[in-house]
């Protein structure tokens, strides 16, 4: 098998996950995109394990470790999302602004929905 096939597949899956992390606003959807990123990396590890075949079995063992860590990460992440929802009644990442610096003339983004009403009222109306 040509080595390019699995490696390109891993790269494209990684790019899809990157887009998902940046373009999603719901915290659970972002966690799903992070799962895509982790799976792209493990696909690369399995491919290099099949190409190189070292005596320690590093590619497949590391994939096993990453699957375990991903399970732990998903459990903790969903617990945090649940806590966030319970305290704020919203799992929307764009609305969690308490730790951000106050910016006034940054109204072009959805991060400040109350102040975005000036020039992008139709976008707010479309999103709400």
């Amino acid at each position, binding site marked *: *098998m*040509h*080595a*390019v*096939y*699995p*490696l*390109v*597949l891993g*790269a*494209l*899956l990684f*790019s899809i996950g990157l*887009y*998902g*992390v*940046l*373009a*999603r*606003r*719901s915290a*659970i*959807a972002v966690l*799903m*995109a992070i*799962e*895509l990123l982790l*799976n792209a990396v*493990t696909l690369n590890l*399995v491919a290099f*394990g*099949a*190409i190189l075949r070292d005596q*320690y*079995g590093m590619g*497949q*063992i590391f994939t*096993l*470790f990453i*699957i*375990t*860590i*991903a*399970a*732990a*990460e*998903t*459990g*903790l992440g*969903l*617990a945090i*999302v*649940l*806590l966030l*929802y*319970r305290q704020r009644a919203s*799992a*929307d990442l764009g609305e969690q602004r308490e730790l951000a610096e106050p910016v006034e003339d940054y109204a072009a*983004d*959805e991060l400040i929905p109350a102040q975005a009403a000036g020039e992008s009222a139709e976008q707010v109306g479309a999103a709400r």
Partner: protein
Amino acid sequence: MTAQTHGFLSPTGIEIAFVLVGLVVLGSGLLVVTVRNLVYAALWLLVCLGAIAVEYLLLGAELLAWVQILIYAGAVIVLFLFGLMLTKAPIGPTDELDVRHRWPGALVGLGAAGTLVTVIVQAYQHTWFDPRGAVPLGRGGALGAQLFRYWVLPFEVLSVLLLAALVGAIVLSRRQREPEEAEA
């Protein structure tokens, strides 16, 4: 094994199978990050992870394929669906799932895809391997021998990490009024 014995125009059966399953992976992955229904996104993630398990099988990692199906399809997807139900996330199609300006994300994704694919094709265009040769390495016996011969300490550390994550998740999601949500 030289490059002269192979050709792009004569793909082997395993390569054809890999590309077809890879198209399933990419298509379902795209649907995970673009579909407007969060439950559908979780189910497309299930399709994507299952297809990746098939790719593991084609690459000779048979134990990993079953671990992937057990852990991801069995546990992680169920965890996601529990999270969707418990946060009362919008079940139907909604516009509030995406940020309003999606083009920076698309730009970063396309840039990463272009850069990575260019670099990989340049670096590995003359590399060939036989996935059948990796099959003995992927069996449960071989993987277990390597795990407990060379990787015992990381394995034990990982078990402690799992225990800590379990305790942390329970502590985080415990509530006095509804203690039955603790197992989520």
